[in-house]
Each structure stands twice: as C-alpha cells, then as structure tokens.
C-alpha cells in the first residue's frame, strides 16, 4: 500500500457527483454518482471503456464543466457553487493540463508556449520566459527552447505540454490520455517524466488512460463503467518503483 495514497486531507473529494447532457429522451447520464477522493502527492489513473465518462469527470474536477448534482470539492473550493469567471481564474492558478493532442499554440515557440500560464498569472514577460526555459530544461528540452511545435516530435511536444502544465507549480495536474498519441516507448518516457518531475508531496495527478501498459505508474487506478466507479485498485510502491526502471 502506498504511503502517499490515503494520507492527509483529500485534494479532490467527489460525492454522488452527477452530470447529465441534454434533456428528455436524448438525455445522457455521463456521471451517475461518482464518489472519489484523491490525496496530495497521489497519481490517480482513471480507466474504463470509451464513453464511460472519464473526460467528463476530469472536466468537472478541473472546473471546465458544470456538474448537474452532487458535491465536488477541489483544493478546498466547492466547484458547484463557484461562478464561471472565478472558476476560470481558479483554474489558471490551481490546475495544470496535459492533453492527448498536446494543444500547443502552433505559432509560438516552445518557450512561449510554456510561458503562457505565467503570463496569465501576470508575470513579466522576461521572467516568464526565463522560468519557461528552466522548466523546459527539466523536461529535457533545453536545446529546443526556440523550436516551433511543428519542428518537434510527438514525444517532445508532449514534454513541452508537460512543462507548460507544471511551470506555474499548480497543486493538481489533469492529463487526458497523455500517451495515446505516442508509441509505446515514447509514452513510457512521458509517464516516467510525469512520475519523476510532476509528482511531488504537494502535487496530485489525475491521468485518464486506455493504455494498460502504463498502469504501473499509478498509485491507484479507478475503474469507471457507465458513469460509475466500479472499483479502485492500488499499486504497491515496489511496482511503481520498478516501472520507473523499465524503459
């Protein structure tokens, strides 16, 4: 049992969380009563068949989507009562995002892309670019600071995206299928990076994935089916440690 897993006050705490899309006959119940706690320093994976509600769940947790009912406390904030504009600001400060398609702005350099969260936090440009460069160095891209996304490989682009998600030191990272656009080897490297660089005692990660081969990187794995969590599995620390050595 991981030492980190269930200690401290939960960073994320969902109770009977529901999300419906549409109404009447066309209504889709994407989340049908999710109960989930995520703890500081924990890497939580969400797995399950396509359409089971993984993206919907992280969208609600990250403050992108309004839930329909239930409770969702994230970093002490009750997201169901937080107004939209305030939530946008909260998100900018508290959440880091890693997307399946990287979502880098194609006309900005790697450093400029990474600097955006800092600019949003109103850091002066020079300082933002300096911190962005440092962050790029930490993800192993010191040489590619001035490169445009199109000049980078998929794995490199995702590393830029991870740098962008981390640069403003958010306490919660949300990753939707971060490896599914990458081959196995590159995906493994990206997960290693997330585990090594992103995980710290005060930062939690939620990683949505289809890819069973990266399961060993998780502290816990929540299996979702049809809008409900069926069970949560825990990885032993030994397995996690081992996964970091298999490249």
């Amino acid at each position, binding site marked *: 049992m991981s030492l980190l897993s269930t200690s401290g006050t939960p960073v994320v705490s969902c109770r009977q969380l529901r999300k419906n899309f549409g109404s009447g006959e066309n209504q889709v119940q994407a989340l049908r009563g999710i109960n989930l706690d995520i703890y500081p320093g924990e890497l939580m994976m969400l797995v399950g068949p396509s359409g089971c509600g993984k*993206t*919907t769940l992280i*969208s609600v947790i*990250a403050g*992108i*989507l309004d839930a329909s009912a239930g409770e969702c406390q994230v*970093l*002490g*904030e009750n997201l169901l009562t937080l107004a939209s*504009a*305030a939530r*946008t*600001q*909260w*998100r*900018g*400060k*508290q*959440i880091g*995002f890693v*997307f*399946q*398609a990287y*979502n880098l*702005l*194609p*006309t*900005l350099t790697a450093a*400029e892309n990474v600097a*955006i*969260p800092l*600019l*949003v*936090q*109103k*850091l*002066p*440009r020079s300082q*933002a670019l300096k911190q962005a460069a440092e962050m790029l160095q930490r993800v192993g891209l010191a040489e590619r600071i001035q490169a445009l996304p199109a000049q980078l490989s998929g794995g490199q682009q995702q590393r830029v995206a991870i740098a*962008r998600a981390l640069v403003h030191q958010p306490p919660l990272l949300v990753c*939707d*299928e971060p490896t*599914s*656009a990458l081959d196995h080897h590159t995906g493994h490297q990206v997960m290693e990076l997330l585990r090594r660089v992103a995980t710290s005692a005060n930062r939690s990660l939620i990683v949505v994935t289809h890819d069973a081969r990266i399961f060993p990187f998780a502290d816990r794995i929540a299996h979702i089916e049809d809008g409900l969590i069926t069970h949560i599995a825990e990885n032993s620390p030994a397995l996690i440690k081992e996964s970091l050595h298999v490249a």
Partner: protein
Amino acid sequence: MINTTPMDGASPLFKSEIVIVYAIALKMLLGDRLKYFGLIAGIAFAAMLIAQQASILVGFTKQTGAFIRDTAQADLWIMDPQVRFSQDHIPLREIMVHTVRGTPGVQWAVPLFQGFVRARMPDGTNFTLILVGLDDSSLTGAPPLMVEGALTDLRRDRAVFIDAGTSAKKLRMKNGGNRPMQVGDTFSIMDHQAYIAGSYRSRTSFFWEPVLYTTYSRALTFAAGGDRNLLSYVMVKLLPDASLEQTRALLQQRTGLAARTNEEFIQLTADYILNETGILMNFGFAILLGFAIGSLVAGQTFYNFTLDNLRHYGTLKAMGVSNRTLAGMLFLQVAVVSVLGYGIGVGMGSALGLLMSSAGLAFSMPWQIPAITALAILLVSLLASWFSLRRVFALEPAVVFKG
C-alpha cells in the same frame, strides 16, 4: 483561494501583462501566413465589392447631371413646370426671355435650346443627336473646354461643335465613310446643312446620343425651321444683392414657369433618370448583393478562422484566460485583418475605378463610399467575431480534450 479579480484597478488594456496576451493573439494571427493572407484577401474582396458597386451607382448619378454642370453659368433655370430631367424638351414661348429680363433682381437672362434632332452623315448614315443652341451674342452655356477651334468659331456660317471625347464612337460613319466625322466635315441636320467648326471636351454624359453645340437661332432653324417658340430654358443670372428666394418667387409668379437652381435641377434629373430607368433598382440591388456577398465572405472568413483556432482559444481558457481577455484577443485579430483588408480592398476598388473611368465607364468614389464601406466591414467583422465568441466562451471540454 480566489485571488483578486484581474479587472480591478486601471483599465486592463494598459496593463503590460494583458498586452503580452495580445501579443500572443497577434502571433496566432501572423504565424500562419497562408491563413493570414487568406483572411485579408476575404475582407479585401468584400470591401472592393461594396465600394465598387456603390461607386458605379454614384458615377451614373453624376453622369445624369453632366449636361447641367457643363452648362451652368447662371443661378436659375426657368423651365416648364412639367420638365422632369435636363433633356426633357417642353417648349416655352420666346417672350418669356423678355419677361424674365424685366423682373427685378435679374442681372441677365439668355435663352437655351436643347432637343433631340435627327441628322444624316456625309455617307448617308442616319443618327440622332442632342442639339444645344446657345444665346447668339453671349454664347452662355458653352462647353467648358475647346479641343479644336475657338468658341467664337460657333458664329461662323452653319457652324456646330462636336464632342472630341466621344466622336470616334458616336459619330462614326458606317455606310462606307468608315471613319468618324471630324472638324471640317459637312453634314445635314433635319435637311439643313451643318459645318463642323470645332470640337470640345465635356463631362461624360449619361445619355448615349452625341451632343452638338450651335447658336440658339441656328438651332431653331435646324430643329424647327425657325419657329421662335421652341425655347427650352431661360438661364438667369441674379444681381449680386438680389435674394434668391424672392427673385425666384417673383419669376415663377410672372412667368407661370418653374425656376430651379443648378443643384435642384441636377437632383431632379438624377431622381427621374435613376428611378425611371430602373438604374436605382438594379444598382440598389447590385449594391445589396455586393454587400451581402461581401459580408458573407468576410463573416465566413472570420468565423472559419475562429473555428480553426477554437482548440487554441479553448486551451487558453482552460489555462485561466478570462472571457474578457479572449474577446480582446479576438477583436484585435479581427481589427488587424479588417483594417488591412479594407485598405487593400478599397485601394484595389479605386484602382479598378480609375481604369473604368478612363475607359469612359461610370465610376465615382466620393469620400462617403470608403466611409460607408468601412462601416460595413466593421459591422460584419464585429458580427462575425461575436458569433465566433459565443463558441469560444462556451468552452466545450470536447474541444480541448479530443485527440
């Protein structure tokens, strides 16, 4: 957890941090050259279309007043009240010239004949011309510029002047002569012999028929065998201290005729011709169509641009960029493209217009047209970006999370 709102304090536009976000907006726009030029081309096309169509209508409108402007050397035109446009010949009795001259406030008054007459070229080609007869002694109302010969040549026996600008087209002999009539030629007007004593240049007229000038008395001879009661207009110059409205009222009362200023007469003519010929309807429709197509192109262009960038806006919003800043970014992008596209479009429109008018086609672009076009482009751009904004504001998780 919530820190202070970003909008407190000074206007956000002047905060350097926000300016950097706008720099990102510009980079988004300029980074993709192909798309950027496509956007500008779309707006330029729209601006050109709108300005072009409107300028052609204004050009036509101006042409309808060409004769009055060329002839206007006086303050008032006395005419039959039923006259509808400048070439509408409703004869007056010649005695009216004397009645007008005897009216207080009048400095001088001269007769003017103007009417359509039939004529025959030396090679037998029949044609219709607009004959203008100028007061014999003063030649008031003469064309503004002589090309060949002098104005006084009009006093020579049987003399007429032809339009140097249009003679090649309108006075071409097609029955074997195989050349345009020119100065020195003799031809016949209503079986009276006429001699081309000179040529002039005038404003482009709306009417197709060639305009030939002669003296008033000779015009009456040509057109009606000397009937003295075929006067078209009396042109009146007022005394410097005479009141226009008082003299006009007096003139109308004494003659029972209408007295119009140049501008009023021009307006009357334009209204009649534009409405009666259907030009206004047709061009109004063409302008609307140009506006609609242009707007559609411009709007579509912007909308597509935003749609293409939706994932990027969504990503920015996910990273905490406020709706207000996103709107600012989008407006900045729209503004840059609109201003450049507008400039290029109106510029190309005027260049094309210059070509058109040098080819003798109707085209006139007063400052109001670029101004109205600017408003139209602005409106369309704002509308399109407003529609796009709704998509940007309603951040759909699917937009940012899909692979």
